[in-house]
């Protein structure tokens, strides 16, 4: 049982971000700035938790930081119809530079090891974010698949002109989807720093945002498959430290590559006939 919780905890930051990103991509918004939003979430969460002594306030601050960067990115991609890859890359660079600069400004150029209050755990190791995250992912999948809003959202990703003709505002729906993704990314970063680490280091997300992007593709834009792909990664990360690390003959690099190999195999066998949203990353300007 503790193993299952451990694997969930390893998978959670990537899983939260990937679930949010699935919603965004379904609406046609590609969020390359995911890594930066996670990092901003990690930083804001640690600062707020450290200053207030309340980890939940920190967690909220992490989500706000993700949302703030999400709004900046949406301004460029949705309102000004800028290239989504370029805008996302700019957001990543902004978040990396900003968090590093603020960290050094506050704690000195040679840094400081921070220790802040972490999120409380129930017996068995579960916590509210793990449970809430699973419920939110399930709810998101249900909204996407079963509701009128979900249908309109998917239409924005497949054929936005049709969504507009049916009376929906493509920009508004895409904004909602992008913000949901940004808030999830902020929460993912906050969970990384407050649910697991209890500390911050420059660039501590270490590529998890990019892995989350890959998980959406591996999961073929289906929330449940995305969750399964993320669990593969979490399980391999966990195993790297807990099972195979006792055998020094096996290089850790091999275990890091394993989930991607597995996901690739799954993709080749089961992913045929499932394509990316047709209007993914394509700007849409509403006609007046």
């Amino acid at each position, binding site marked *: 049982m503790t193993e299952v919780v*451990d694997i969930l*905890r*390893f998978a959670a*930051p990537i899983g939260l971000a990937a679930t949010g990103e699935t919603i965004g991509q379904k609406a046609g918004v590609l969020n390359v700035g995911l890594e930066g939003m996670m990092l901003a979430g990690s930083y804001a969460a640690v600062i707020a938790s450290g200053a207030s002594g309340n980890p939940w306030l920190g967690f909220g601050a992490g989500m706000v930081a993700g949302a703030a960067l999400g709004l900046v990115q949406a301004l460029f991609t949705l309102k000004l119809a800028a290239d989504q890859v370029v805008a996302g890359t700019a957001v990543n660079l902004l978040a990396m530079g900003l968090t*590093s600069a603020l*960290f*050094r400004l506050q*704690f*000195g*150029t*040679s*840094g*400081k*090891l*921070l*220790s802040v209050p972490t999120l409380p755990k129930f017996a068995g190791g579960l916590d509210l974010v793990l449970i809430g995250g699973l419920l939110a992912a399930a709810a998101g999948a249900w909204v996407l698949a079963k509701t009128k809003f979900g249908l309109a959202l998917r239409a924005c990703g497949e054929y936005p002109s049709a969504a507009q003709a049916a009376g929906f505002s493509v920009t508004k729906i895409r904004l909602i989807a992008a913000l949901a993704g940004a808030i999830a990314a902020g929460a993912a970063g906050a969970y*990384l*720093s407050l649910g*697991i*680490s*209890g*500390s*911050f*280091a*420059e*660039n*501590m997300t*270490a590529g998890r945002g990019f892995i989350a992007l890959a998980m959406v593709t591996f999961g073929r834009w289906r929330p449940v498959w995305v969750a399964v792909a993320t669990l593969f990664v979490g399980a391999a*990360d*966990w195993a790297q*430290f*807990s099972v195979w*690390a*006792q055998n*020094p003959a096996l290089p*850790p*690099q091999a275990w*890091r590559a394993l989930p991607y190999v597995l996901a690739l195999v799954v993709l080749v066998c089961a992913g045929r006939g499932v394509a990316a949203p047709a209007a993914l990353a394509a700007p849409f300007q509403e006609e007046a």
Partner: protein
Amino acid sequence: MADNKGAEPAKPAPVKTTLKVALLTPGPVSDSGWSALAYDGLKAIESDLKAEVGNQEAKDAQIKDSMRSYAQKGYNLVFGHGFEYNEPAIDVAKEFPNTVFVSSSGGKTAANVGAFRFALEEGFYLAGITAGELSKTHKVAMIGGPDVPSIRSTFKAFAAGAKSVNPDIEVIEKFTMDGQDVAKAKQATLAAIDQGADLVIHQANAAAQGVFDACKEKGVLAFGANLNQNDNPSGVVLASAVIVAKPAFIELAKRVQAGTYRGEITTAGMTEGAIMFTFNPKLADKVSPDIRKKIDIASLSIINKALKVPMDSF
């Protein structure tokens, strides 16, 4: 070059204008560890020698570019903080005979290229003895960031120290593969403790808090590394293996300034006062006088060079 006699290659001349010193680090200088201590050394050069200083994070393909750009701007000393800067320095140094390139460890030299190495292994060896004496489970752990030869070498010294007093001890080794990943540092440490380790040493730099907090959560003790981390808020740091970098950095810069630097490979350890192993006075009751005596004797033997701590060359 009037003083260039025979086949002896040209050597950098004394610096008559303001000394300019650059530092290249493999990670952010805010890492509270390896890169931070070099940055503090650089700032000491700036204030003590009134030097102009610059620093940059540079790895892999960026290394040569950074070296060239500092040399072109007339920097007298370019210090690369890691063995990986040694070979690029050999190439770049040929184009800039008036700039001295020094790396932290590495095996190659030229007239204006050298290396000096902090023998952190000595501090890790003493931590190993302490861990070997104190472990009740006969298992200790080492948590590393990136899997690089310099970190592996310190871990070997820790294992050798532990085995010197407790031949049956099991040494668990885990690498997170990323110096900044606090979450993985914590998770790797938790896994090591679950496997029975009751003393943990790290080479995790900025991610070290993850190691300490995991130890606190599970009620085991840890060792600090690179800097003196005894006063970490976790309260679990029993002792630290410390690099005292400032005097070595200032000495190097002075020699470059005076024009007396000759490309060479040197090692600075406990004998030179560059490495220290310091117990945390707040946890003094955890270490018996007997163990302290053993550490004192081993320290003296290292300083007198009677005891040779294993060190990989790379």
